[in-house]
């Protein structure tokens, strides 16, 4: 049971770091929801 919980924790950590890396560097979506400059400019 303890081993499974460790695997879940490691998986969650890897997923979180990978997702952060993707969002920050590769995602086309703007990271910051309140970011006006990019968001509004994009709307035009």
């Amino acid at each position, binding site marked *: 049971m303890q081993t499974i919980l460790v695997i879940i924790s490691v998986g*969650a*950590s890897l997923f979180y770091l990978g997702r952060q890396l993707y969002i920050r560097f590769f995602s086309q979506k703007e990271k910051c929801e309140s970011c*006006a400059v990019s968001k509004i400019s994009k*709307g*035009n």
Partner: protein
Amino acid sequence: MKIALLGNPNTGKSSVFNSLTGLRQHVGNFPGVTVDKKIGEFSVNDTKYKLTDFPGTYSIYPRSKDEEVVYKVLSTPSNENYPDLAIIVVDASNIERNLLLFTQIYDLKIPSILVLNMSDIASRKGIKVDLDAIKATFPNVEIVETNARIGLGIQRLKETIHAFKVQNNPFKPFIEGNKLLEISDLEGQSCEAEKRFSLIKKLLEKVMVTSDLSTDSRSNKIDRFLVHPIFGYLFFTIILFFLFQFIYVFASFPMDWIDKGFGAFSFWVGNQLPNGLFSDLISQGIVPGIGGVLVFVPQIALLFFFLSILEESGYLSRVVFILDRIMRPIGLNGKSVVPLLSSVACAIPGVMAARTISNWKERLITILVAPLMSCSARIPVYTLLIALVIPSKTIFGFINLQGFVLFCLYFLGLISALVVAAVMHLILKAKDSSFLLLEMPSYKLPRLRNISLNVLEKVKIFIFEAGKVILAISILLWVLATFGPGDRMDVSVEKLKKEQVFLSLEKEDQQQLIASEKLANSYIGILGKTIEPVIAPLGYDWKIGISLITSFAAREVFVGSLATIYSVHDDGEEQTSLINRMRKERRDDGSLVYSLASGVSLMIFYVYAMQCMATLAVVKRETKSWKWPIIQMVFMGVLAYVGALIAYNILL
């Protein structure tokens, strides 16, 4: 109904926004604080209104990236953000300049409410405005007087918004036959602005009464000293000196409490939980990981507390003003001061604040050098290394040597940023240069509410953004340090146990040696040994190398990584244990790993190295290219390596 909140910088626009919506937004005084769009909602008699806070701008003609937003939205009725109603906030104590933007928006035929904010300061300056006379000039506009900092007039503003109806009066333009949006050249725009200013001046002669009080305000008297060519710099230096002294002294107490608290908690958790892998992960990985985040909260909170006081009082605008003349010869100007000052807390808002710089070259240089300013994430690294290799003694009878080294590291970062900026100024070519247009806000007594909200917001960001990354890395590092490929760890331990030297040791030392052997054969140990030849010339061993790699995510991870790698057992004094363990650490030849040479070399490395993924991501986003973050990482990496190499070889 979509409502746009518009106005010049430093008119109290953000205060109006906070008062109307109740949303928490930073209220600032220095130029360009409202870079991001803020959206809020409020309701009057069950009717909901959506309010958008736009970047502060002096006219609708854009001079920087964030001002472009205002132009794009207001010039395009089909834009999804085009407002049904514009609330234009003007500083009642500086009405002439503020009316330029208002009259432009008025001439765009956007239904408007004119908010005369800072009415208290206007009164103190002896300025009285005849509202009826203004209304006669702009018949379709409603006018409300407010003092948003204390919420005065906000209810009336809400009622005015609720009752607002587009008037059917024939439109009476401020400038006849104006073609505001068709003027694209700078000269034409200047002409248009001049024409408006001359009409505004005539209008104010009719509607504004100024008593003698305005000739020499309290702010002007203070400014004679604070922006003085000599005393201004002296005062700023003293302020900075005390700021860092306070942070250094006051943060240490709560940091110790948090550190000891988490050490004890980790120990307690370890005893309470049943034996097992996950229990070890919680007590040795997760709890110390969370503690590793929270221990820096006092420093972050104090830093922003003092910066907020300076900002709220109006002093930071004076700093921008006096530093403008220092920045010019190296290709920057006062507008770069705000991003650089922000970078002392964190380079991310610093890089984003560079949006207010209209000239691309100046903006790029500011973005590239901002991470050289020593950010708050470096404080734990510096503090640990200073405590490790710099003796705690007094020099010249009154200067604390450790504190002096910390000051030197900050100073080195600042000087390096200026030197690199000067070099880039020579390399990068640009046709024109921008100038600083700065409006000095009146001095105000800092409001505790605004300061508290700002500090809370920053601390929240630190805990929940940086904290999650640190926690995730702590978990991964713990796993990588606990396991190794196949049975390699067991085989090496068995081999060790048969050695004569091992058998002659005390039991406690044997356990220590077994732990070291396991670590050396874990995944992290193997990786560390692989990179060791690259970092050995700097005086580092493989354990430091691993911490350098993990701290690429964030600099503060360095301390946590070392704590994990050295297998420090939580005994309620984790920090002391780590330092003691590091002090005893020796190489195979018996020499100390953390000598003065290697310690200073590490400090120099952290002054220069671009150890922050989040900053690189923001630089990539802001420059819309991979080129600049890569260039930044490479040049900072080279500076770090060469600087550390030189320091190590000189002090060896």
